């Protein structure tokens, strides 16, 4: 009876795993096939890998796009970690009369879809384009700033800070650390797992962000990788082998970041649930 239950559970889990992994498998198989084979749904690996890669690197500026995406994602992630954790720490540790009201207003802002603020944002960046072109439309800074910290991450850090032993703050103060010192020397090292989880989420969000970069970036040399892939699919007769190759390359960095921080990530997520 116990065995039967086991078999059932394993079959179910294997099926579920297959369903979630199949798209990735198909993607990996497709980079070795010709476009015609991909459209016909061929499931076996082919011999076209080298040609696909060659076409990709010769006809598409994938390296600059990867560089742009990397710059944006890394800066966004660093800014997010710093700003959101400072805010989360402040909201939880410090006492103030109005903090819960401010925090709730902040949470309300999570309910506004990005599409609703996109036009005003575009207008804002457009109005500074002449005086500060480095921050105006078609600049990497314009991609980073609106996404550099969001209510979600502040919420995330505040929830996790609830588990942070406040005695440590007291101890630090008694030992003569400044408020900033407490944050950097005590809080940050203790909250490593939370930082790791936030880093992964922020990096993935930024790396995959499509709508805002699409709207704000204009020159081809500033394109990020999702924009480049969208372009590849725009033709009347797209080369699916090459598109799949680009997608695989675009997936690698997020996968890498995830596997590097997986252990912390899981711990961080558990923490936030407990909190």
């Amino acid at each position, binding site marked *: 009876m116990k065995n039967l239950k086991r078999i059932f559970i394993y079959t179910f889990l294997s099926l579920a795993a297959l369903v979630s992994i199949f798209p990735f498998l198909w993607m990996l198989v497709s980079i070795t096939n010709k476009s015609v084979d991909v459209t016909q749904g061929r499931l076996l690996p082919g011999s076209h890998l080298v040609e696909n890669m060659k076409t990709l690197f010769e006809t598409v500026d994938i390296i600059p796009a990867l560089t742009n995406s990397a710059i944006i994602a890394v800066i966004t992630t660093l800014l997010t970690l710093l700003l959101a954790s400072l805010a989360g720490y402040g909201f939880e540790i410090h006492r103030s009369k109005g903090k819960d009201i401010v925090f709730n207003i902040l949470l309300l802002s999570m309910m506004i879809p990005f599409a609703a603020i996109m036009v005003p944002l575009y*207008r804002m960046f457009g109005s500074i384009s002449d005086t500060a072109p480095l921050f105006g439309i078609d600049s990497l800074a314009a991609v980073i700033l609106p996404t550099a910290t969001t209510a979600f991450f502040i919420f995330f850090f505040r929830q996790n800070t609830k588990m942070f032993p406040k005695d440590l703050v007291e101890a630090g103060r008694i030992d003569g650390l400044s408020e900033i010192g407490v944050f950097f020397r005590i809080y940050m090292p203790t909250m490593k797992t939370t930082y790791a989880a936030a880093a992964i989420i922020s990096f993935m969000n930024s790396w995959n962000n499509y709508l805002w970069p699409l709207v704000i970036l204009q020159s081809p040399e500033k394109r990020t990788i999702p924009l480049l892939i969208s372009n590849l699919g725009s033709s*009347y007769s797209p080369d699916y082998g090459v598109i799949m190759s680009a997608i695989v390359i675009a997936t690698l960095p997020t996968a890498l970041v995830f596997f590097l921080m997986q252990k912390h990530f899981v711990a961080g997520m558990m923490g936030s649930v407990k909190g």
Partner: protein
Amino acid sequence: MKKFYLMFALLISLAVLAACSSGDDEANGASGSEGSSGADSITAWAWDPAFNIAALEKAKEAYDGDVEVKIIENAQDDIIQKLNTGLSSGTTKGMPNIVLIEDYRAQSFLQAYPDAFYPLTDVINSDDFADYKIATTSFDGEQYGLPFDSGVAGLYVRTDYLEEAGYTPEDLTNITWDEYIEIGKAVKEATGKNMLTLDPNDLGQIRMMIQTNGSWYVDEDGSTPNLEGNESLAKAFETYKKMMDADIGKIVSDWSQFVGAFNSGDVASVPTGNWITPSIKQAEDQSGKWAVVPMPRLDMEGAVNASNLGGSSWYVLNVDGKEEAADFMLQTFGSNVDLYQTLVKDIGALGTYSAAAEGDAYAVEDEFFGGQQLLADLSTWTDEIPGVNYGLHTYAIEDILVTGMQDYLNGTELTKVLENVQAQAEAQLK
């Protein structure tokens, strides 16, 4: 306390809404495009590197002005998103000088942003272009678009499959859709292949059918939905159902499956726009097995064997450099016959500039299509396409029709279905 929160929530949403709508007058001033001149570079947006972008490159080569032309490739949906955001924000920063817009969408852009486009009425001569393109590229008496690629449709057929069933391409020339279905049944019986692909989410098939009879989803005014009581549409729906009932359609759900179906030889014909030619030719092993015949027509008085699917035109935006951009357009796509010859020869891009349709390049015999003078044929059919005003809501109405079609296929009565979609369209597009 609760009240306090509620008030705050309200305040925030109000602030957001206000930000979306306010300050239009200010925006028009800020664009500062009046009386500008002397731009030394202009930007053009288009999609598809093998087709529109390639055409722009050729135009750039043919152009001998001092202005540098920057060609930027964006996917079509991306262009729409970027234009909508940019134009509705009221700032012209980051907007291109020249942009390619699909004909089905042109009217809604022209109506939503009347000052954003630069009229070409005095720049080009609209009589030089195929008639059916003018209605969709002009607005309020002004010519805004420079008509570019023709979406002239043809029926691409597999001659080998037809032969197996005892037909020649001549048997499919100038037929009605009803006759097409009969042939489809015979072909399926003889070869086991489906006659065509059908995508339940893309009613391009219906669009092509009703245009053969000069009809569209909307009235002449371009905005009143014309669905209930539209005989052509009713006929097209009936024909679509007949195809389903006869089981001659292979159901596909996206572009890659559509291309895959004919590349792998699963269907005996492809009724669609001429821009599909490169995709058909992708399957090199099928060379010599294809021919293109005129589009079947609806079995109605007045319907012709010519239709259109897609097609797009160039627009000049009302931003700094508009004079230069208009001049570039005039010198290239607006008057250069040789350029059109190059486009046809090197890219297979079929323009709608009438004077260009007689050169040698059009008479080339295409081996892939068994030596047919494909481009000459297509350009003859272009002249016969009934002109219709695509109006503002082609895709919005089509979304409604897609569900209507499902109801109809599931057994709801046709008059009832059309009544429903008419009511929905009227409610939604008010």
